Each structure stands twice: as C-alpha cells, then as structure tokens.
C-alpha cells in the first residue's frame, strides 16, 4: 500500500511537471503510465517509441500502479494513457468516467488470450491429447499425483491470502473435486507456485493448477489453458466464488471470470495526439503468444521493458506494422 502511495505521488509530481520538449505540430506532450509489472512496462515502452518516432509526439513515461494511476487519471487528467489497465478493480468508476466523457477505453483487448484460469503443461497434452477440458482432467487424478499422497490428484492453488485462493477453494468444492479423488496442493507463495511448475516442466511431470497470463511462466513453458466449461453466471461468481468458503455455501462450477483489461486514455489525449494516436491504440493488439514470448525474452536476458521494446520492434515487424500507417511504419523502422 505504501509503495502504491509513493508511486501515486511520483505519478502526480512527474505529471504536473511535464517537461517542455519539442512539441510537434501534429502531436503534443503525452504521458504514459509505466505500470510496475513486466508486460505493462514493455507495452509502455513500445507505445513510447511508436508515438514518438511514428507520430512525432513527445512521450514521458510516469511510474504507475493500477489504482493510483486510475485515480490520478480521473482526478488530474494525468497520465494520458494506461496501456494495460486491469479494469475489474475499478469497473464501476471507469464506466462512470467513460460515460461522462472524461476517459475513453480505446482497446478492450490489448493482449489476446489473457486471463486467469487452470493450466496444464504441453507435454501432458502430447501424451494425453484428450485432457483439454476440466472435466477430462478431473476424471484422471492418477495422472497428476499429489506430492504428499500419490493416491490423489494434486490441484495447485494460489498462495494463502491471494483473492484467487478463495476462488480456487470454492471451485474445488464446485467441481466436486474431493469426491473425484483430488486434494489441494498448498503452494505457500508465488515462488512456491512458480517453482512447482518449473520443477514439473523440467522433469516432464504432469502439473495441474491455477495461473494467469500474460506471464513469463506461461510463455516459458508454453502452458495450455484448460477449458473450464460454461460460465456459471455473475451472481454465482460475485456472490459466492470470490467469498471465503464459509460464506459460499453452494458454489456452482463455472469458467473463470473474464479479466477486463483495457487500454484507457484521458479525454485530453484526443486533443494532443489526434485521431492518428487514437487509431493506433484501437488497433494495437498483442497476440498472447507474442507477449508471453517477449516476457520470456526479458526474463532470460534480464532485460528492462525498454530493451524488450526495441527487440520487439526489430524482430516482430509483421505484428506491429498492422497497427500503424505505412508512413509511420517507415519512420519507425528508420529510427531503430
């Protein structure tokens, strides 16, 4: 919480003292929120290069985190852009701001294939191609032995205290997993969860449990999302699955709630960046595997988002050239 507050104040300070620099006739000064996780950091750096080189904007990155950045955008109109905004946390306030015309959510899917859910490793599917659905997997606990009781299947859930821990415990009940021969594997911490996947992948063991994308782990081990079945309705999710076990008496099986991730801009962005900039953000969609691949690259090379942005623009032209006009694409290529 403290870090978020510091970042907020940083965001505000940086935002207010937006540095005077060469303002282009077509595009003015723009601030982009540089969120504190890898994929958003990378996206912000790519946006910076494309807007600067392709459209002649002057771009400043400001540190951010989901809620502080949103509050600052809403109240102060700074920063102008949040490239990867996880909207579930602020959906009501965001809708209100969009209705009032203070903000625009330009892109409702900046990264495809993104979200939370259950995953398995690809070598599991190679041997047992039928295990693509939760139903098929839950019928085979013998393939995913629990580390402490090999007669049961091991279901890896979130570390204690995370919101998804509650959801997974309720889904464990909802899918009737105990009767099907499954037991929960306590992962303890993010390192424990990641480590359990890494170990299984390195040793060719099967692994089944919760994770989310875009992340380096999903990209690195090429993990496959499990089809959890039909969506069980908003009431089931919001009034039961996300609550502590004792408050969720009758959970129903459901797919994971959709994570709403948008690219949002302030109303002011329309004036400074013009329709060209708006158009860019509308088209800019990273295919999930490309994004995960970049995150793996960052991890392997211990690279910053800025290095990754250059690597991406150099190697993945077929992806980004669709987002910009051919004129801008030429300018960007020349600048690299």
């Amino acid at each position, binding site marked *: 919480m403290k870090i978020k507050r510091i970042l907020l104040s940083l965001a505000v300070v940086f935002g207010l003292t937006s540095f005077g620099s060469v303002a282009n006739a077509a595009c003015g000064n723009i601030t982009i929120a540089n969120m504190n996780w890898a994929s958003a950091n990378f996206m912000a750096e790519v946006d910076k290069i494309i807007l600067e080189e392709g459209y002649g904007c002057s771009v400043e990155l400001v540190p951010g985190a989901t809620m502080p950045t949103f509050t600052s955008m809403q109240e102060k109109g700074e920063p102008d852009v949040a490239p990867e905004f996880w909207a579930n946390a602020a959906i009501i306030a965001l809708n209100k701001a969009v209705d009032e015309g203070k903000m625009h959510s330009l892109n409702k899917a900046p990264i495809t294939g993104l979200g939370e859910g259950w995953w398995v490793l690809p070598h599991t599917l190679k041997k047992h191609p039928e295990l693509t659905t939760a139903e098929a997997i839950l019928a085979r606990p013998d393939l995913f032995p629990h580390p402490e009781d090999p007669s049961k299947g091991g279901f890896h859930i979130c570390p204690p205290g995370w919101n998804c821990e509650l959801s997974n415990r309720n889904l464990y009940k909802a899918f009737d997993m105990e009767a099907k021969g499954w037991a929960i594997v306590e992962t*303890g911490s993010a390192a424990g969860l990641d480590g359990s996947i890494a170990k299984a992948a390195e040793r060719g063991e099967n692994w089944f449990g919760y994770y989310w994308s875009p992340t380096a782990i999903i990209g690195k081990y090429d993990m496959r999302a499990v089809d959890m079945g039909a969506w069980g309705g908003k009431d089931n999710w919001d009034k039961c699955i996300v609550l502590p076990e004792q408050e969720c008496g009758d959970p129903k099986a459901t797919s994971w709630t959709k994570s709403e991730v948008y690219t949002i801009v302030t109303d002011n962005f329309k004036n400074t960046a013009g329709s060209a900039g708006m158009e860019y953000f509308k088209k800019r969609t990273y295919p999930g595997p490309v994004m995960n691949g970049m995150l793996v690259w960052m991890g392997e090379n211990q690279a910053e988002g800025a290095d990754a942005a250059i690597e991406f623009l150099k190697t993945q032209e077929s992806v980004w050239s669709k987002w910009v006009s051919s004129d801008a694409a030429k300018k960007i290529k020349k600048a690299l």
Partner: protein
Amino acid sequence: MDIFNKIPVMDRTALRELKKGIDSSFKEFSRAYGDGIEGFFDPLLHFLIWLEKLLVNSPWPLVIGVFALLAWIGSRSIKLVIGTVVCFLVIGYFGMWKNCMATVAIISVSTLVCIVVGIPIGIVMSKSARAEKAILPVLDMMQTIPSFVYLIPIIMLLGIGKVPGLLAVCIYALPPIVRLTNLGIREVDKETLEASEAFGATPMQKLRSVQIPLSLPTIFAGINQTIMMALAMVVIASMIGVKGLGVPILQAISNQYLALGMMNGLAIVALAIIFDRVTQQYGQRIQKHRGQLKK
C-alpha cells in the same frame, strides 16, 4: 584515475552467461538426480504424514493428555502441566487445533532429524580440530544465509510440500545443536577424562560413559535452541507449502488481517514457551543430578 572512481565490473554478457550457466547446470543436476533424492526422503515424508494424521485424528483429550504427560516427565512441575493443558485448550477453542497439530508434527520431526544428524557431527567436531575448522564456517553460513535463497534450489529439487519445508527448517535449526554438542564434549573436565583413561577405557567407552553423559546438559541446551529456531521457521516453511500455523499468518500478511495474524502468531509463541520450559527444566534436572554426584 578512472579505476579509482569506478569499481571493476565483470562484462555484462559474461556475467549473464555465468548466471545462466549456474542455473542450467543446477537444472540438469535436478533433472538427473531429483527423483532419486526425492525417493531418499520418502520414508521421512511418510513418517511426517503419519504423525500429522495421528495428531489430527486422535481424540483431542488423548492428545492433550499425552502432551501433559510429556510435560510432566520433562519438568516434574504441576504448574507447567496446567499451563500446557490450558494453552492447548485455548488454541483448540480458537479453531487453530488442526494447524497447531501440523506445526507440532513438523517441529517434532525436524527436531528429531536435527538431533540424529547434529549430535554425531558435533562429536566429530569435538574430536578433531581440523573437522571443527572445516565445519564451523558451514554452520555460520547455514545460520545467516537468507532462507529465500536456498528455497529456490530446494523447490527445484524436491518440489513444494512437507519434505522441502522440513529441509529448510533443518538447515536453519541444525547449527545450535552441533555447536553445543561440540562445546559440551570439549568442556568435560580433563581430570575426569584422565581418570577414565587410567581405568583403561577405550576411546568409545570414554565417549559413551564419560563425555556424553557429562555434556548432556549442554547438549540439551542445544536441543532447546534447535526447537526454538525450528519454530521461528514455521512461517517460512509455509511459504513452500507446509501446512500449519504459518499458513493463516501468510493469509493475514497479504490481507492485513490483524486478529488472524496475532492469534496464530501467539499460538506459535505458546508452543515455543511450552517446548522451551519443558526442555529447559529437563536440562536443569539432569544438571542437578550431576551436582549430587559430585558431592
């Protein structure tokens, strides 16, 4: 002079390659030997699971009765026995029974492992100055290296769960018993040793009937310290999937649940005090016994 302003730094790519090399060679090692090492620890895992199930599934009055009996055998103090019973009743009343039993199980087994491994190492150290010189820095490292550092290789090698948790606890809790065994044996009175030699005791006889009995109080202080340090590792062990009182504490940390954190934290404190007082009293009783002999 540039060299004075800037510390010489390894080339960035070389450094990266070095790190990658260490990572990948460890991964290869874990791929090659991981299963074998896991198999080696299987009996320990089964024992741990058996003990935890026994503690959780036995009727609670019986479990508390056994604890009270152990406290009585250890301390011969009715106050301590009552305190033990009350502590466990309160822990149970606040809904922490299951987690508490899981913690007791892992603490007991790791203490046992530490005793079995630590005392022989301590004896070897006391016998040979060279061994002492070699082992001391290792003990220093075990006590000071941040646990998160060795958690990564342990997870890669053994996965998450009880055994890796047990190892993490033992790495931290082993040094005091080794140190104090070593110290205890070295402190045994030289004249007593000479006397035993004069009676023609072999080195083994000397060790078994003179040195170890006389150093027992010190060794017991080491066991006491080991238990305390094992309890201190409960939360860290929970971070790699060990059930117990650490789990709700982790929940409390990420959600700022003050009461939940306090209650489980105090339960650990209660366990610590019970274990500490009982083992300390026991150690003192052995000492008293020795004092009487001397007179």
